[in-house]
């Protein structure tokens, strides 16, 4: 059957088939390669030309105070511009004359935008003269929603608005330097805005789509991821109290001719900072209204030698480690003494040699007596107590917060061996001092300070701030005796009359710190003065610390007395603290 004649055409068929099949095979391989193997790559390549996306921006969260009063929020504002060429076209359209001719429209626009109508018309005319084809003329920036509605109601086709988000601080400078501010691009620069960026910042969403010729969006190709607005941060601050204290410290600081002043209020039972007032400060709505040096909070960033406000810490160390009580033993101290190691210690006022009790040494704030008491325990013990009371530890993690400086005992020289007993040779911030007194007021239990109450997500989930660390740093009995001595300081001390808060038993301690002059020495005649205390003594609720930077009318810490009295009075009033009902114990003797 397979003759030569029939074999030839069949072979040809087979060959042709083989060729066709192999070509087909090549195509199939290529097809699989394109459609399956490197499909993703090709899709990605095509999307460069076809796909597009727009970012949907979320709104930054608010900052509210302890009562929910808004201290910072984001609002939408509108930047308006117009198209002069389109305006001209509308104006010169004879078939269809404009309902609102430019002469009239410009007056209305100017009225709504708060511009001068003549200047507006002249500006547009000038822009057209310069370039008749110009399609952009800036009218006004940052207009609000009411102006937006009014301008839209004019129905002018040549007006355009671009919306953008801006930050508004409804209470102005109240806690301004604590809240902080954003820069022009919306990046946090200072304060809570910076510290809580993680909570406040929104997550932008995006919309992706494919587009055909001329950029027409292909229906059904849109994919939208919604933006998630930023969370809202609640502070522990009471903005009304903060306002009063800012107002008060501004008046007091100016009355005393000081460079600045601060007031910090801490709740004894929780360690929450209820007020952080400063002068000078900043209105974050209007940065240019204050000098750049006051844009940033100094409360947490300025460390000073506390001076006498840290004498109670020395007292705590010796009471717990050398068996000293408020009334015995006594030390003899004159107003200036040379110590065996060559150190010379002075008291702030001249006095004869007294046999001071520990209480008396605190009441008269005798540096000499404290030096003698303090050296009853080793420097290491005192170093330990300074550390326990929070020296050298940051408080709330505020941006650029300083931890202060606590030199190790090996670096204490002959002089600082003694000066460290009365608050020199180490530095602290005002909140650190408040933290130390919180521990005394709270029966020896130190609770870490806090400034943030919670962060509430856009969906309403509340994230409470982590519980502050609590630590019993001194015995409750020691704290009680310190409190008693500090009340005696308030009652028997030099400022007794000026710091009386009617109805309340208060404690107080002054501090006068020398200020480095930047050349290794100290400025002469001016001090960084402070006064710290808590009330009411029978059930301590709030710690208040007032500082004044270089008061000149009264240069000593007495300058802070009036501010301290007003601050404490207002704090008691704000929180409806019941006046003291338990009378004070017998006065402690100063001398023997």
């Amino acid at each position, binding site marked *: 059957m397979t003759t030569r004649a029939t074999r030839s055409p069949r072979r040809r068929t087979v060959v042709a088939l083989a060729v066709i099949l192999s070509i087909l095979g090549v195509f199939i391989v290529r097809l699989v390669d394109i459609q399956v193997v490197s499909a993703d790559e090709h899709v990605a390549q095509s999307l460069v030309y076809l796909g597009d996306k727009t970012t949907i921006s979320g709104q930054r969260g608010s900052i509210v105070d302890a009562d929910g009063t808004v201290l910072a929020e984001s609002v939408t504002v509108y930047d308006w511009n117009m198209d002069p060429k389109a305006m001209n076209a509308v104006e010169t359209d004879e078939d269809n004359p404009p309902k609102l001719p430019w002469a009239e429209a410009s007056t209305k626009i100017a009225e709504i935008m708060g511009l001068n109508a003549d200047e507006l018309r002249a500006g547009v005319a000038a822009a057209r003269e310069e370039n008749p084809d110009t399609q952009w003329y800036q009218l006004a920036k940052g207009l609000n929603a009411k102006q937006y509605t009014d301008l839209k109601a004019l129905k002018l086709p040549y007006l355009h608005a671009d919306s953008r988000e801006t930050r508004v601080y409804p209470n102005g400078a109240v806690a301004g330097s604590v809240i902080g501010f954003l820069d022009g691009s919306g990046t946090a620069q200072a304060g809570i805005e910076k510290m809580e960026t993680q909570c406040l910042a929104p997550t932008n969403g995006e919309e992706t789509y494919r587009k055909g010729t001329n950029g027409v969006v292909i229906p059904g190709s849109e994919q939208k991821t919604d933006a998630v607005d930023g969370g809202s941060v609640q502070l522990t601050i009471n903005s009304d109290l903060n306002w*009063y204290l800012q*107002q008060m410290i501004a008046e007091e600081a100016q009355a005393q001719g000081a460079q600045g002043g601060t007031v910090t209020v801490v709740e004894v039972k929780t360690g929450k900072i209820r007020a952080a007032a400063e002068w000078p400060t900043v209105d974050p709505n209007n940065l240019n209204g204050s000098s750049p040096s006051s844009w940033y909070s100094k409360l947490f960033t300025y460390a000073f030698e506390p001076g006498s406000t840290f004498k109670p810490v020395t007292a705590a160390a010796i009471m717990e480690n050398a068996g000293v009580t408020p009334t015995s033993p006594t030390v003899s101290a004159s107003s200036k003494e040379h110590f065996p190691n060559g150190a010379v210690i002075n008291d702030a006022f001249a006095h004869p040699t007294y046999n001071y009790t520990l209480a008396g040494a605190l009441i008269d704030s005798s540096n000499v007596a404290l030096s003698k008491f303090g050296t009853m325990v080793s420097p290491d013990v005192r170093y330990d107590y300074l550390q326990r009371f929070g020296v050298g530890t940051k408080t709330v993690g505020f941006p650029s917060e300083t931890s202060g400086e606590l030199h190790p005992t090996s670096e204490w020289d002959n002089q600082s061996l003694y000066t460290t007993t009365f608050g020199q040779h180490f530095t602290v911030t005002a909140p650190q001092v408040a933290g130390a007194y919180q521990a005394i007021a709270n029966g020896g239990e130190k609770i870490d300070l806090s400034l943030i109450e919670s962060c509430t997500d856009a969906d309403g989930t509340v994230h409470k701030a982590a519980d502050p660390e609590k630590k019993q740093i001194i015995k409750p009995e020691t704290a009680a005796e310190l409190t008693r001595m500090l009340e005696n300081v308030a009652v028997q001390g030099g400022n007794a009359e000026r710091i009386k808060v009617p*109805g309340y038993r208060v404690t107080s301690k002054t501090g006068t710190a020398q200020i480095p002059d930047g050349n290794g020495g100290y400025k002469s005649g001016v001090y960084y003065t402070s006064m710290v205390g808590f009330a009411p003594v029978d059930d301590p609720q709030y710690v208040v610390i007032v500082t004044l930077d270089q008061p000149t009318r009264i240069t000593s810490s007495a300058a802070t007395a009036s501010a301290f009295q007003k601050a404490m009075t207002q704090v008691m009033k704000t929180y409806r603290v019941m006046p003291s009902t338990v009378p004070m114990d017998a006065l402690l003797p100063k001398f023997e």
Partner: protein
Amino acid sequence: MSLNATARKPLVTPAAPARAPRPRLTPLPKTAARRKPKLAYALTALGGALAIGAAQIGLSLAITQDSYTLASLSSQQRTLDLQTSALQEELTGLSSPQALATSASALGMVVAGAPSYLRLSDGAVFGTGTGAGWASTVDPNGAGAVSNSLLVPPASADANDGPVADDAATQTEQLPPAITDGLPSPETH
């Protein structure tokens, strides 16, 4: 071919089954007369088709209508949102403690010192036991005023804001001179 044909000749099997073969084919009983197609079915089918069509048109009309309603509602929502923000913006600043303190001071109110408390159970008074003094502990209009740039143009911004500022001015004039400086005393010569 002939050989094959012969070979396939059916063989008669002598041992056929005993059972009588059943006839394979039986005549049909009388065939049913073909019925006339009922008009009702046609109408039902047609009606159904029309109903489906109508429903589809109705639905798409409803969807279209809804999308218009949606558009109009979202535009209404936008307008209301704008109004809300406009109203909120009006409140911004006015709600601040500075604004409150300034207005209160214009009415002659003072920030008093220490408070007093009355215990209802026994009528005991705690605290100072006196009323507020004439002097305010702070002066919200003084040099220590806490700034708020949102409050800066109160009179010029809007005509509606006028009365408040005017009231403030006249009130201050009517009040005893310099209330923050203590109790006014008559001038004697």
